[in-house]
């Protein structure tokens, strides 16, 4: 990169800065062995518990010919990645409580980098978790029915949704007084999204009033799309629904998070 010569464009600055902050956040993740361990442990438990504890009971409400593990894995992909965005909120809240953000604010760097570096690191971590989950699923008997292309499309869609969602959690982190409260504040948002969805079982088994929420929320659209792309079946409606939600969330929450961050910057 010839950035030292001449004046880099604002876009180049924003991208390089975002990459640097992403690297810095990933270092914090990679360097703490516990965080990798727990990042892998939680989805492992999801898969094992739901598959072996609920699997027998739930498989009766599944479409014929679909095994519960194949049905479950797309749900766990999306749910795990959604829960992973909590780390964005915690990390940002913790950063605000140390002096490091002060340093970033007085440096001649892109204002957006602190936030895009957070969501960027989230994206990388999500990719790792997806890889781990896929390997685990395969070991247990999960199979992709629609080939590599379908799987890649499903991965891309999940990452897109997670990226959008992490901007919501950015805002939570910026509003939270501490890392601990960021954690607590995230749960009321993520819990209903993750569990009142088609992630673990068909929503037709839920009471009618709950189905209304479950059928229209972004996790259900994304899970349904991922399921169709991996297992087969009509995918278009769910894919469009998921993308529309992701776009909508980004359009609303990215500016809100940036606004909140700027406001914090000028106390």
């Amino acid at each position, binding site marked *: *990169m010839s*950035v*030292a010569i001449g004046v*880099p464009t604002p876009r180049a*600055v924003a991208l*390089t*800065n975002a990459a*640097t*902050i992403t*690297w*810095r956040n990933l*270092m*914090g993740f990679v*360097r*703490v062995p516990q965080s990798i361990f727990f990042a892998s442990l939680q989805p492992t438990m999801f898969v094992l518990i739901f598959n072996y504890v609920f699997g027998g009971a739930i498989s009766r409400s599944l479409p014929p010919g679909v095994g519960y593990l194949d049905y479950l894995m797309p749900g766990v992909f999306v749910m795990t990645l959604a829960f992973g965005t909590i780390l964005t909120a915690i990390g940002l809240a913790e950063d605000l409580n*140390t*002096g*490091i*953000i*002060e*340093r*970033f*604010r*007085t*440096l*001649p*760097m892109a204002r957006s*980098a602190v936030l895009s570096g957070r969501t960027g690191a989230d994206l990388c971590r999500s990719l790792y978790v997806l890889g781990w989950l896929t390997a685990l699923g395969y070991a247990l008997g999960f199979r992709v029915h629609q080939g590599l292309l379908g799987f890649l499309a499903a991965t891309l869609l999940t990452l897109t949704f997670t990226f959008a969602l992490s901007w919501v959690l950015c805002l939570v982190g910026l509003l939270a007084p501490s890392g601990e409260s960021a954690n607590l504040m995230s749960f009321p948002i993520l819990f209903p999204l993750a569990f009142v969805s088609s992630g673990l079982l068909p929503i037709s088994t839920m009471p009618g009033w709950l189905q209304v929420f479950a059928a229209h929320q972004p996790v259900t659209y994304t899970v349904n799309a991922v399921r169709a792309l991996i297992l087969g079946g009509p995918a278009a409606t769910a894919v469009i629904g998921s993308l529309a939600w992701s776009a909508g969330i980004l359009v609303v929450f990215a500016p809100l998070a940036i606004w909140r961050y700027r406001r914090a*910057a*000028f*106390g």
Partner: protein
Amino acid sequence: MSRSVSAGVTTTAGSAGELAARSPARRDDPGLAIVAEGLVKRFGKVTALDGVDLHVPYGSVLALLGPNGSGKTTTIRILTTLLVPDAGRAVVAGIDAVKAPARVRPLIGMAGQYAAIDPKLTGRENLIMVGRLAMLTRSAARQRADHLLTQFHLQDVADRFSRTYSGGIRRRLDLAAALVHRPKLLFFDEPTTGLDPGSRRDLWAVMEQLVAGGATILLTTQYLDEADRLADQVVVLDHGKIIAQGTPAQLKAGLGSSVVDLSFPDETIAARAVHALAGANRPAQRGDHVEIPVTGNTESAMSILRTLQAHDLSPTSFAMREPSLDDVFLELTGHHTTEATDHQEVAKR
């Protein structure tokens, strides 16, 4: 300084030339690194800054001296673009810090009271990160980090996680991080607050090295000895206003070189001691304590004790110490540092 007239005075003066000089495009003395005029900042009902003027020439060190809540940090946050003032002008390196903060940032380096480093990275990585954020190439950032680690004697701890550092080393790394992008101007907000005496001396040596290299520094401090040691000019703040300014020597002129601190069994006896000593000295009573600024050392202390003996008064303890911020306040305002005194006392315990 002729430019430090308040806005009100200039408006009423009103000649055509002065009006032109007050237009936004007006030029400040190019030899000045920092120009602040009439800075005002309120937080709700609290007025943190109430019309502060500063003029700092390039290559000089200015210390803002004052207790907690006097407006030091607010001033430094305005000048480093972290805060927008409610009124007044802040010009840093010839650029308006309020109107063009993005153009000021490349020119300034800031190190604060709370070391702004990433505990999850090593010292070296912290410096490389700052270099990369300032758009140095990878190799340039690495070279700059090496250079600063050597300059600040941090090589031995460079590859340890910075969360394992002692307070003093963390501050040293923080100062180094403020220098990565070669800023023209440095801002240090209470650089040694909360450090043990050894670390303070160590950090002073680092800052003196920068001063010797011709750096322009604005630092805030609660310690008179720190201002005395590092600064060319000292500005004393109290409740958001400047109550005194001058060289450290001028500031200390009225204080004497030391303070004799006597304690008595009770306040009545202390009051009698004040009365007895008032002829030749300027004693100040503080509960059962009496403090007397002195210029000569042993000689004046002996004469104080002789006077007390002649009045049949014997102190329960006797101590000599260097003048503190509190003594400056007593001298300037007739009262002790409010609020802050309690913090400092608590911190000492």
